């Protein structure tokens, strides 16, 4: 697959990448190498100039094709303020499940379970934009977790988090998820969560 931005910046030139169920992948690379771009391409937020994206055994081209992908793969954004836009934590977490057609009762149960899993009990009624950075990150993760994705794409999840919050994140990833790609600059963190490491640079991706 190849991809370049409209401003002429070429990011990928015949990039080849595949992952399987159960892969715990760490993705590193210099700034501007296209790590975030890769995740956005997988989610169908950007479209490749040439080449093919195949997810869950089907080639994905149109926005329509990605609806299913977005339900089964969860993307955590770099900036939590981008991800949290509902007034309260509860509503932000319920937004995805309700969009998937869950009833209010079910959504409420999902909110409660998700909060329990991430240690966010008692946060349900809090106002999202008054949370601290670390809390925002965990709530943003909760909004992704609430959709019960089979695969997670985490864009620098540990950046700016203190040790305790990072530990909570780590515990969650180890115990509750099986398949993910994590982008990070923190090699120490990566060693704890990734079984495979890839480096992305100069439009090439290679396993370490």
């Amino acid at each position: 697959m190849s991809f370049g931005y409209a401003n002429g910046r070429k990011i990928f030139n015949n990039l080849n990448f595949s992952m399987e169920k159960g892969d715990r992948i760490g993705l590193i690379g210099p700034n501007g190498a296209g790590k975030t771009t890769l995740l956005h391409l997988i989610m169908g937020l950007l479209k490749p100039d040439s080449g093919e994206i195949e997810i869950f055994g089907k080639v994905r081209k149109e926005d329509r094709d990605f609806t299913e992908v977005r339900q089964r793969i969860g993307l955590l954004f770099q900036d939590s303020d981008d991800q949290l836009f509902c007034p309260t934590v509860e509503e932000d977490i319920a937004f995805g499940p309700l969009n998937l057609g869950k009833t209010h009762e079910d959504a409420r149960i999902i909110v409660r379970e998700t909060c329990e899993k991430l240690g966010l009990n008692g946060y349900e009624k809090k106002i999202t934009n008054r949370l601290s950075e670390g809390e925002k990150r965990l709530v943003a993760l909760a909004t992704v977790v609430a959709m019960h994705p089979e695969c997670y794409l985490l864009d620098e999840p540990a950046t700016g988090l203190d040790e305790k919050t990072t530990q909570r994140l780590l515990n969650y990833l180890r115990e509750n998820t099986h398949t993910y790609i994590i982008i990070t600059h923190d090699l120490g963190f990566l060693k704890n969560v990734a079984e495979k490491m890839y480096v992305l640079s100069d439009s090439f991706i290679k396993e370490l």
Partner: protein
Amino acid sequence: MHLEEFAEGNSFFHRLDPRVKFITIIPYIFVIAFMKGLNGPVLSLIISLVMIAFTGISIKKLLSRLVVVNAFVLLLWIFLPFSYSGTEVFQIGHLKATREGFLQVLSITLKTNAIVIATIAILGTSEVFSLAHALVHLKVPDKLVYLFFFFYRYISVLHEEYIRLKRTMTIRAFKARTSIHTYKTYAYLIGMLIVRSYDRSQRIYKAMLCRGFKGKFPIISHFHLTIADLCFGFLMTLITVLIAIISKNG
């Protein structure tokens, strides 16, 4: 930036159902706005003051808001007395200040303050998100509500962005002067804010797409009317009708 300082508290007004608040305050405001003479405005100002007293909002904070409003009213005090014909009070050159003019501007001042104080007491004591919710429940068009809500949700993020940019200017020894350099810098600052907010809006939209957004916002929590809400609604309606009658009969 703290936009909801009045919403913190636990008075009777803070606990009222925002739907009832909207339904009762709108006629109240309209009745005040269309009043003539002085009796009605004085009476409604007293009622508004009684309401604000119940909220426990600090007088200092309230005054700081009223100063802004009354700065505009002050302009009216300069122009209006001269633009009505009637009994002359004093004269500057060819301009005659009239008693009718002064009464008119006094009435406007009283009405403005009555409306602002009532709005702070009734709407200001609810958090913006619950007001937005109430608007959805009252069948206000979704797009308007979301516009209002997103504006509120991201204005503080934008403000932080502005402060960050301003700081980077300050640490590089920027001082505002009357010079092309200053204007240019401010133009860059505003341009940068626009570019960044556009980028952010794109990222937020993408994040919403990832979570299955199809153009509708589901609402999870609902309001429940209490006896207090009904009493307040009844009382406010009664007051509104009464002041309407009183001001009409002079």
